[in-house]
Structures are given as C-alpha cells and as structure tokens.
C-alpha cells in the first residue's frame, strides 16, 4: 500500500465500500475521507446503514467490495480489510459500543486497563511469576489508566465494579478505555444515546478536549443532531446505505436531499 | 439382510424411547430456556414409583403406569413451582447447573424411598412377536413404537393446531414478549415441566424391561436424548425427534457392524465432528448477535 492511496493529511479514506446481507445492500458504494485530527460526523435516519458501515470499517463485518485506507500510528498506510478484527486496535483505530460493552464484574480501572491489552509485552510465564519486568509494566500502565480516568473526571470511582454504575459514568469509562491505545482515530457509536441535554453539551466539550489533547481524529456516528452540528468539523449524510452529501454542518443543514431523507417528502409543502 | 432389518426394527424401538426423552428436553429448553440435564433422573424416579405400585402395591401394570404418570405430573409441577419459577434472574449457565442439582436430589431421594436393590419391571405385552421382512419384532416393541409415535403425533397436533400449543410456541419464541401479549407463561412453563416429566416416565417404563430398574436406568437415554437435541438442533420441536431416531439406528448399526466395544464411542466421535462443521444441528439456524 503506497502513500499515494491515502493523501497526506488524511487519516481514513473509504473507497466504494459495499456490503450485502441476504439480498439487501446495507451499504452501497460508500466513499468519504477523514482528515487527521478532524471531528467527522456520520449521520442518517434509522436504518440508513451507519452502524453497518462502521462495523465494516472496524472489521466486525467483512465488506463485499471496496477498500478502507488508514494511516496507522506509525505512519504506514494499509487497507483495513487486510487485517483481522483484533488487530485493528494495534493500528490506532479504536471504537466504543452503543450498548456500552464493559465487564460488569471488573473494576472500572481494570476495564480501562483492557484497553491497554496490546501494550503488555511480558509473557504469560513472566506474569505468572511476577517478574520485575512484568510488575513494572503493570504499574506503568496502571498509572496511565489512572491518568486517563482523572482526565475524564471519574478517577474517584476507579476501584468500584463497573456493574451498577450510572449510564453516564459507563460511557466515560468506555471512552477512557479507547484512549489507552494512543489512537489515531476513535469511532464513537451513538455516544449521546441516553444522555440528557446537559450531559450532551458536556460530551461535546469532552470530545473536543480529547481531540486537542490526544491529537486524534474522531468519527461520530450519531442521531442527535445538536451534538453533531455542535461538535463536528465535517459531516457525511447517508441513506439506504448510499452516500447523500458531505460538507460542513451548515452545508449539510441546508442540503435538500438530507432534509428530505430525515423529514420526508412532505417537507416540500412548507 | 434379515439382521439388518432386525437391527432397524430394534432401532425404531430405541429411537422411540430416545425421542420421547428428547421431546421432554426440547420442550423445557424452548419454554424455560434451560437444558434439562435431569430429565433422565426424574424419569428414573417416577419409573421407581411405577415399579413400587406394581410390585409392592400389587396394582396391574397399566394402572401402575398411570400412577407413575400422575406422580410425574406432580413432580414436574413441584419442580417448576418451587425452583424454576424463581430463576428469572439466573444466568443461563447457572440454570443448567440447577438441573445438575436436581439430578443429585432425585438420585439421592430414590434409594431413600425405594431402597438400593435393583428392581424389575416387565413389559406390557410380555410375549409374542410379529415376523417382518425376514426378521421379527415383539408385540411389545410394536406397542412401544406405536405408542411413542402416537404421543408425538398428539403433541405435535396440540402444538400446531390448538390455542394451548400456540401459547407454548409463543413462550418458546420469546417469553418476555409473550407475557406482555397476555400469554399465561407461568402456566405454560408449569405445563411444560409436567409434560416433560410424563414423557420421562414413559421413556423409563419402555426402557426398564430391557435392563433392571436401578439408579442408572436412564443414564444412557439421557445422554442420547441430549445428543439427539444437539444433532437435530435446538431451534425446532421436531429436530430432536429426527435426531433421536437417527441416533438409535446409527448406534445399533455401528455397534453391530463396526465394533461392539467402541460402537457407541464412534457415534459420539461422529457427532463431535458433526457439531464442529454444523454447530447448529441438522435443522438449526445460527442466531447472529448484533453489535
């Protein structure tokens, strides 16, 4: 994969991504690109194919057609489809889950430490024997995790089990988990789901702060228009798995096709 | 050729026994979402009841069997009422383990009530056989096969054509939604456990004449019934029945033609390989988890 496939300044480029289930095309020839450190929104009405698209990006689904170029942490460009799902995080691409997939019985700190899984280099034997190298590694990564939790303001709860924590806290824990791998691109799966107005405004702030502090791009797959319009630098709208429009928040707001997709044809009466 | 026919005829009988037990397991699985490991043990317990009624109480065999069915109904109701009803919050693995606990209870209570000596239960039709295609099948065998098939026919009729059957199938598909729709799921579950227990005692009564009535009476049946469900897939009611007959036939053929010692193990090995390639059974469908 040469650097020609992905321009300088871009971190992700989808090229004609397609996937079908049964006879139904869930994502149809979708293309867009995300710049480094850009906050990019992917919107569309229910069933538009947003989640399917980003499951394809993160290799939870294998697309039928198309390429996904990504510039990893080390500057190397590759096609994500060439990688198995558990290797994606090594490249610096990490995601959250709409249903907040945390491990209930583990403490919040341990949950965040799972995000550092790939950073542990000591062997199983070394861990079993608690060699100095293994102990130091654990301490170092533990401290990093505590730092991230402090940054997100939830370090006081870090020893409590994740199960039973309020939903807003859990979303922050998932976010903390993604930051452990020093990501180049974080994909957020409906992060505003279940949050009230105040929490959503805070979320926008947090997303911007993360982008500024960690220097990563953010792909936001979201329903909540206020969050998207507020925080995104650029937005791509899709419907029926197909590309509709891309542009700045203002441009998307004014786009007739996008309006029709969300509000239906009757909008024309107004 | 006649040996082959003989084997097939025997297998139909074995298959009937397995399918009754497998039906019990699948009914429980689809309504309570529990893999009923204790189906065999409960069947064994109620078969002891039948034997007790027959030998000690001196009832005629057919009456003793009915007595056993009543006891099975009571056992099934009780298990559901005392235990299963209260397991809503329990994880699926833990529910399985509850049935392991049930095995222990029934295997413990049986010698408590009926002593440790093996007992004997005769067939309903003790003598006489019918020649078929160069082989022969005992009248009792015909009775077993016929009875087994009728029970299944009745069950399938009830499931597919009656309101009760619809209630069962709805609960089996999604218990929560069924409850919201007004289906009396509590009753359905209770009935399911009672019916499964009755199927268990019927299987036990058919098995008993071939061996003696001991604690291990239903071990083989239980294992094969479970494997029948695995083979036939847990998604349908008729899959395990199909699986049961296939296992009955395959086992007898393997044991006779290939190896009397390793025949059963070869069957298990075969099933193992089958599971790897078709994890959801002959008729099962994969359920994709949405992320």
């Amino acid at each position, binding site marked *: 994969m040469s650097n020609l496939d992905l321009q300088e300044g871009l971190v992700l480029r989808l090229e004609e991504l397609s996937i079908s289930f049964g006879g139904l095309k869930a994502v149809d020839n979708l293309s867009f690109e995300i710049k480094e450190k850009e906050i990019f929104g992917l919107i569309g009405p229910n069933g538009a194919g947003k989640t399917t698209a980003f499951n394809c990006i993160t290799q939870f689904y294998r697309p039928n057609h198309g390429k996904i170029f990504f510039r990893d942490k080390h500057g190397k460009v590759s096609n994500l489809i060439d990688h198995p799902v558990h290797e994606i995080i090594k490249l610096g691409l990490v995601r959250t*889950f709409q249903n907040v997939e945390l*491990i209930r019985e583990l403490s919040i700190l341990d949950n965040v430490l799972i995000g550092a899984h790939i950073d542990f280099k000591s062997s199983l034997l070394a861990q*079993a024997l608690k060699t100095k190298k293994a102990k130091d590694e*654990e301490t170092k990564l533990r401290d990093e995790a505590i730092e991230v939790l402090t940054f997100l303001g939830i370090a006081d709860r870090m020893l409590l089990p994740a199960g039973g924590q309020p939903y807003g806290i859990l979303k922050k824990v998932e976010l903390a988990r993604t930051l452990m791998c020093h990501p180049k691109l974080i994909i957020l799966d409906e992060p505003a789901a279940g949050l009230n107005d105040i929490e959503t405004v805070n979320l926008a702030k947090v997303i911007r702060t993360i982008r500024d502090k960690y220097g990563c791009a953010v792909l936001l797959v979201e329903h909540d228009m206020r969050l998207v319009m507020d925080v995104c630098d650029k937005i791509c709208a899709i419907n029926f798995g197909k590309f509709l429009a891309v542009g700045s928040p203002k441009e998307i707001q004014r786009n007739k096709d996008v309006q029709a997709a969300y509000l239906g044809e009757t909008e024309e009466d107004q | 050729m006649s040996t082959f026919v003989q084997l097939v005829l025997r297998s139909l009988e074995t298959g009937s026994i397995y399918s009754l037990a497998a039906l019990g397991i699948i009914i429980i699985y689809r309504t309570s979402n529990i893999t009923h490991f204790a189906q065999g043990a409960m069947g064994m317990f109620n078969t002891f009841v039948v034997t007790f009624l027959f030998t000690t109480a001196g009832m005629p065999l057919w009456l003793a069997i009915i007595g056993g069915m009543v006891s099975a109904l009571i056992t099934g109701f009780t298990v559901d009422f005392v235990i299963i009803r209260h397991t809503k919050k329990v994880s699926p693995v833990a529910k399985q383990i*509850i049935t*392991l606990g049930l095995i222990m209870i029934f*295997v413990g209570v049986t010698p408590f009530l009926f002593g440790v000596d093996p007992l004997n239960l005769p067939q309903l039709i003790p003598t006489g056989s019918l020649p078929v295609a160069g082989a022969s099948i005992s009248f009792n065998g015909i009775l077993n096969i016929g009875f087994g098939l009728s029970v299944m026919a009745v069950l399938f009729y009830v499931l597919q054509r009656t309101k009760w059957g619809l209630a069962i199938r709805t609960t089996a598909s999604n218990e929560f939604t069924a409850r919201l729709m007004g289906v009396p799921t509590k009753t359905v579950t209770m009935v399911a456990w009672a019916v499964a227990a009755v199927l268990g005692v019927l299987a036990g009564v058919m098995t008993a004449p071939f061996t003696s009535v001991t604690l291990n009476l239903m071990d083989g049946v239980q294992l094969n019934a479970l494997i029948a469900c695995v083979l036939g897939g847990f998604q349908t009611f008729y899959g395990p029945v199909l699986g049961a007959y296939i296992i009955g036939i395959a086992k007898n053929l393997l044991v006779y033609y290939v190896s009397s010692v390793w025949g059963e*193990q070869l069957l298990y090995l075969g099933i193992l390989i089958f599971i790897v390639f078709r994890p959801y059974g002959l008729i099962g469908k994969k359920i994709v988890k949405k992320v």
Partner: protein
Amino acid sequence: MKLKRPSFIVKKNAHLNYVLFGVALCLVPLLIELGLLRNSYLTLVGSVIIYSVAAIGLNLLLGWSGLISLGTAGFMGLAAYISAYATVNLKLPFEIAVLLALSIPLAVGILVGLVSLKIEGLYLAIATLSVSEILRKSFEEFGDITNGFSGKTASYPKLLGFFQLDKYGTYILLVVVLVGVMILIHNMINGQMGRALNAMRGSEAAAQAMGVHLLKYRLVAFALATSLAALSGILYIHFIKYTYPPTWTLGMSLNILSAIIIGGVRNIYGTILGVFVVFAVPDLFLKQIPYFGAMPGFAYIVNGILIIVVIMYYPYGLIYLGNDMKKLWGKVKAKVKP
C-alpha cells in the same frame, strides 16, 4: 454486587495468605501424630487438595473465561494412568513421568480448545463430555496400560531419583503444589491475562475491539485448565495409589463443577471451600447425622439442594457468605452500641 478488593494494594498480602494457608494445611499430619485427628483425615484433606487443583483449573475455564467443559475427569484419569504406567511399568523417574503425564493430556486439551472456537455453551459441554467418555472407555479397554477393571496401582513419589517420599511427605508435596498453583493463578488472573479472559467472557465484541485474540486466549484457557486437571490426576495416583476406570466418570466432573459453583466462581479460596463442601462434608458431617446420615443418598440430596440454593440466592458462591456475615454483625453491633 461483590466489591473486588483493590488488587494492587493487597497483592503482597495475598501471596503471604496463600503461604500461611499452606502452612496451616501442613499442620494436619502433626495433629494426627499428636492423636488429635484420626488417621483418615490425611486422606480426606489430601483429597480436598487434589480436587482443588483440578477445580481451580475448571474455574479458570468456566468462571473466568466463560467456557464450559464436562471433561475434567477424563483428563485427570488420563494423567493418572500415564504417570502410573510410566513409573511402574516403564520404571521412569518421577519427574519424567510427570512431564509425560502433563504433556499428553495438554495436547488433547489444546485440540479441544481449537474446536471450541466454533462451538459454544451446551454444544461445547457435549463435545467435552464425549471426549471424557471416549477417554474413560479407553481406560477400560487398553488393559495393557491400565489393567482395565482390576485397577492400576502406583506408589508415593521418589523425588530426584533418591528422595523417597512417604505418606506425610507426599501430603506435604500436595500442599506445596496447591499453594504454588494458587499463587501462579492469582498472579495471572490479576494481570493482563486475567483481564483478557474476563473480557472474552463478558463481551467478545469488546474483547476483539481491544485487541484480544479470541482463539489464542481460548487455547490458553483450555491449556491451563487441562494442565491443572492433569496435575491433579498425577497427585491423585501417587497419593491414593490406586485407580480404576469407574473413578473417572461424568459424576466426578459434575462434582468438581458443583464445587466451584457452590464455593465461588472466580474466587480461589472459594474453589477450595466448594471442594470441601462437595467432597469432604459428606464424610465429615453428613454421615454423622443421626438417622439421616445412615440413609443412602443423603449426602447427594444435601449437595443437590445446596447447589440450587446457592445459585438462586448466592450466585457468586458461598465464599461471599463471609461478607454477608460481617455486614450482619456490623448491623448488630451498630444496634447494640448507640
């Protein structure tokens, strides 16, 4: 919801606790020699230790990794027979026998692990059960190695070729092995591997997104569980010194499974508590109860009821009964002192 104690604060103490626990266990021979305990207690406690090793392995598989196996007994028996045959027939030194008896079951265990990626839950249970049944049949049939139903004998181990252990020496070996296992497993569980296994159990999707290679960790889980079952089998044959095929049935696998459920999934001390309840309490207490104790099957009934009660009301195991007792005591104290 059980609060996990902050591991990085208590870790040092945890190791010490395991060692102290081992020392306490070593007192049993002393108490027997002093006449304070009956001789049979050595076998009783020894058995608890032996089954605990296998149970910790199963807990790793089922409790922490969420993978079910009904094949524990098969692997234990396989290792037992191999070690017996190696030391008695092949006259190999104990250490070589141990190596053989660990590696062969391990190879089979890894095969099962490979298969496990494609099948789950009940299907995995049936697959492991089939493996165990095939193994048990092998014990019956390969009489040249196993002596079939006559049974196979072995003797107390001879360490490093010259140090012959006696009854008490072997018991101490058992304790040392158990404490070693407890410490190693504790370290692994509280580190990266433990988190990866928990993640695999809790959410395969999240685990994969975080870089956990599912196949690798399933294999690790199966490899460890099988090794511990094999280790347990080796300890069994060299302490109990006799075995025959009916020892290694599904019943034993189920007993070990019950032990970890009753005692505490995902808890090392809980595992030992559970093994004690399932394997020792029947002989120690239940048989002594007047009238009921003499009845056949009584222990079985009690165990069955216990399993059901624990699952319904104490899903994390009886080991947390201690916590509840402490809380209750705290409440009582608060009421008494204003």
